[in-house]
């Protein structure tokens, strides 16, 4: 398959023959297969429970908001967990940026002596299994009375995303041309002026990419939220785990819940597709 795919590459070539048409068709089929579970989730969420559980599937069954009504007002309200997730993700992303941007500055534009070692120290913390730090954090939280407290999650999410953010921001800051920095210093521009008029315009898209990735990872996190929170600080993914065991006819409600919780990430991710690539590759792919 790969070999035939290459036959018609690279892009921008002359008209392709019939083989090209087949490859385009294949690309469409693969794309539809990958998006199908997502579409199925959305469609099922708008079906009634009885129709959602049919075999063969009732694709053209009438649409209803039953599942959403059940999700939002059937049992425990999903609003507190959704708001907790929003708070934890936004606050931790803001803290990450506040810590990561100066750090990245000290690792790229005016680097400390061992900038490379420091950079790899940050990455190495990402490789250590988080589960190994879970127990001491739990015991500490228990001791300090911080269990079921959203601030504990915020601190943890900050540490989870900080290495990624430092790597990304360093890669973006390294793109600021040296000549521009030199010119600014010759002109007698101070630090603030240099930051504002030379550095900021170049790295703004990078900051957006970093923020997007940090937001998504915090929003998605389950393990720590499950262990460290209970009823008060519960996040949206933890709320979803109540659907792990099946409970009679509940598929439409489950799909509605999964869709609602995924919606912020879907919207942000689709809106910033290119940033997504930059972010996921720690800024090394632009």
């Amino acid at each position, binding site marked *: *398959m790969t070999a035939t*795919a*290459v036959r018609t*590459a*690279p892009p921008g*070539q002359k008209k*392709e023959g019939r083989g090209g048409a087949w*490859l*385009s068709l294949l*690309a469409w089929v693969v*794309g*539809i297969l*990958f*998006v199908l*579970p*997502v579409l199925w*989730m959305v469609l099922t969420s708008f079906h009634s429970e009885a129709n*959602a*559980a*049919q*075999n*063969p*599937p009732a694709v053209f069954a009438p649409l209803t908001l039953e599942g959403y009504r059940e999700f939002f007002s059937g049992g425990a309200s999903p609003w507190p967990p959704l708001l907790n997730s929003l708070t934890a993700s936004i606050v931790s992303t803001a803290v990450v940026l506040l*810590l990561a941007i*100066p*750090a990245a500055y*000290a690792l*790229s534009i*005016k*680097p*400390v*002596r061992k*900038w490379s070692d420091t950079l*790899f120290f940050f990455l190495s*913390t990402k490789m*250590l299994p*988080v589960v*190994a730090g*879970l*127990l*001491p954090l739990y*015991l*500490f939280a228990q001791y300090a009375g911080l269990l079921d407290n959203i601030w504990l999650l915020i601190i943890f999410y900050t*540490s989870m995303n*900080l290495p990624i953010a430092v790597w990304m921001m360093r*890669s973006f800051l390294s793109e*600021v041309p*040296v000549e521009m920095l030199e010119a600014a210093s010759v002109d007698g521009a101070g630090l603030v002026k240099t930051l504002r008029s030379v550095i900021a315009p170049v790295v703004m898209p990078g900051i957006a990419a970093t923020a997007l990735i940090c937001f998504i990872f915090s929003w998605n996190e*389950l*393990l720590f939220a499950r262990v460290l929170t209970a009823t008060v600080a519960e996040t949206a993914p933890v709320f979803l785990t109540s659907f*792990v065991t*099946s409970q009679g006819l509940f*598929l439409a409600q*489950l799909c509605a819940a999964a869709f609602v919780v*995924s919606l912020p*990430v*879907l919207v942000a*991710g689709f809106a910033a597709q290119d940033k997504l690539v930059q972010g996921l590759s720690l800024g*090394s792919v*632009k």
Partner: protein
Amino acid sequence: MTSVAEQAGTQTEAPRPSPGVARKASAWARRAPLLPALIFMIIVTQLPFVATLVISFMDWNAYYPDERGFAGFDNFVRVFTDVNMRDAVWTTILLTAGVVLISLVLGLGIALLLDRKFRGRGAVRTMMIAPFLVVPVAAALIWKHALYNPEYGLFNGALTWVWGLFGSDNPPQPDWISNMPLWAVIFSLVWQWTPFMMLILLAGLQGRPLDVIEAARIDGANNWQIFRSMTLPHLRQYLELGALLGSIYIVQNFDAVFTITSGGLGTANLPYTIYQIFYQAHDYGRASAAAVIVVIGTIIIATFALRTVSSLFKEEGRR
């Protein structure tokens, strides 16, 4: 890319005429912006590991609070002789390698398909990204209940429908999760991670020097030759990057195992097993010993991995 940093880096290392005090001050001025992040990371990620190390030598079970004390290497012996732990190591390897390899190969194929101009290319790319943007727990729930479920899941629903087309009312209705539990988890993760690999590889493909490829084509190289000797070597660092980042995340996977099988049927990986020892058995000493062993194993593997990354970023700097 690293040229800016390197240039500035050599400047600091050059001997300066100014006396030590001024130099120290300037070194601290350089370090100052870095310190908050560095200190934060050391406190939040390194201190807990020290605590884990201490607890791993203790007899500490929350169910028996009176028996807390020094245990020597008992916890480590128990972890090493525990069949579940050994199975968990093996499961983690299978799960990680399976997901990373399959999603890399699929991602490469799809990236090649998308690296051409055709109608709706942007739409197909957008569709491909969707799986990665579903919250992992939500995705695992959808796979477990809406796709794999033997009674009303989409897979068996589709089988019923296809068999129905041929007039058969006796379609096969396998119980996917019970029949192949580990593969059920792997497939759901492959679905989520293929877009990630595809995006990185597509970015790599689009950075190919097209004029060189055109020249090779004029010289009579066929497509397979171009792929083997030009595209693949160019993609190598992107493949390595995808494999490394994918491994970092998938080796730690908890959500899919927890949701789809709850660690049953031989799918408990290391994160899930340690979570269980800690959260369900409340055996803090044993959980910590397991964690320490996993950390040591990770450090050994990560040393090799980090070497790859550093060579990767050096190559990038040379360009």
